């Protein structure tokens, strides 16, 4: 098993949930936050998940 695949999927799912929350509820704040944390952190996780998936695909291509 190429670990990049499941962890890529995991972070994509996680990123999608958190980003979605940030888009649907842009005013959601904790007492000390001034920005839309969910949106930014979610996008970061989406990007990381996509990066892992891309790496997994490249490795799979090289093998075949």
């Amino acid at each position: 098993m190429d670990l990049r695949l499941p962890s890529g999927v995991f972070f994509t799912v996680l990123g999608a949930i958190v980003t979605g929350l940030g888009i649907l509820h842009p005013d959601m704040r904790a007492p000390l936050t001034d920005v839309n944390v969910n949106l930014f952190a979610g996008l970061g996780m989406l990007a990381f998940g996509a990066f892992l998936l891309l790496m997994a695909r490249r490795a799979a291509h090289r093998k075949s």
Partner: protein
Amino acid sequence: MKLAAVDYVILATYFAFVIGIGWVLRKKVSTSGDFLLSGRSVPLWITSLAFIAANLGAQELIGMAASGAKYGIMTAHFYWVGAIPAMLFMGIFMMPFYYGSKARSVPEYLKMRFDEKTRGFNAFTFAVMTIFSSGISMYALGLLLHLVLNWDFNTSVLASAAIVLAYTYLGGLTSAIYNEVLQFFLIVAGFAPLAILACAKAGGWHGIVSRLPANMTHSWRYMGSASQNPMGVELFGMVAGLGFVLSFGYWCTNFLVVQRAMAADSMSAARRTPLIGTIPKMFLPFVVILPGIAAVALAQMAGAGGAHLYELPLKAGTHVKDYDQVLTTLMARFYPAGMLGVGLTGLMASFMSGMAGNVTAFNTVFTYDIYQSYIHKGAPDSHYLKVGRMTTIVGVALSIGAAYLAQYYNNIMDLLQFVFGFVNAPLFATFLLGMFWKRTTAHGAFSGLVGGTIAASLTWGLTVAEGKGGVFGTLYTFPSVMAQNFWIAIFAFSACFLVTVLVTMMSPPRPEKELEGLVYGLTKIRHDEGAKWYQRPAPLAIGVSAMVILLNIWFA
């Protein structure tokens, strides 16, 4: 702190993934070697991240934020002084013997290099120690979840243990290691935003420096005398005690971490595992310690309405600060639903990676070094695979028992952790002499270990720090428990070293032929000719050292 539905969804997604990884990997297990040693087939980047993740348990995560709030940037010494040099030494100098000897565990290496009694001593103390440390970590997590989320202690302890059991039982060490990498990513994803938000709110590093006492924002400047810095430790105690004895003892001889490097697919990868691990390791302080430091600054800043932005948490019904709650209370102040779920999942992930590390190491040592050596020799491999699987269940059950023991007898656990310190501290002297001085004999090594342990108990019994120790009288009073710990380690190491050398000189040497592959000078170390420079251990180690020195200067 209250969780929303989405936070539970995130937590559930994570649980599904860790168990799913174990489920997929179960097919890879057909021998005891697959289950307990990963069949030595794990890719380098995975072993490197697992190497540091196995050490990044919940206690570490909670404790580092707590120490950040208590001692400031000096806490980073646990990384930059107390981990990186030892990890480099391990990769460059010690891994060739561990991996090359074909030993399946650290105690087994001791058996090959010395004798049965030295192995037995190490295997037994290590097995007991891993059980108690995973139990203590489980207790810490259960307590915290109860405090901040009002979750039931029993449910959270049993549920998290059941999940760890599920994926380690299914896929063995490979599953534990693969999940440790996922957990490592999740810890960073869950806590790096907290560090950034808290630091930005406190006005950046400059804002923090302007609000905190100078000895909390400089890691070296106030090390000259113990009374000047918040840790109460002086330069020599820090560098020799933490930086040399304790850290080399932990990173170079503790099977929990060594096992990750031994699972690598080649000697070259095994040597580079701790070396590459140092790169994320040196930046972890910015994720795990910085929030604690920023918390102290936030506690001095007034917000709207004149109240402080943040109050350092107190123990229930007292005015004593409860630093262990710093991390979770900060999360509640900075994370809305969604990110809160990610942060909490990160905390759970850290707990699981620490516990799985303990359980898999316990497994291997029990099955190979205790069961196969003393209880049932010469059975077919399938028998040991079955024993390995059973030991997983027993190990988890014993950890749960230890967690409840910790809940009922808090002070006993303090004492136990101390006793384990005695056992661990002299160990590095034994390995140093064993690996680099071929004359060292088994009797020398064993008497050295015993001598070192006695020296440690004597130091503890004759000195006092913060009202602890001094059961035999008081010869000296240390400014802090931490200084006392460091000096106990220094005395234990020195005593072990001297006794080993003395007894070795009085006992007959072992024939050199038997020591091939186990000792420096009698082992061919491949120098990876043909490998690119950045794939060789030495240039890697030099690069890492330069980066760590720069970090130390930056925050001096």
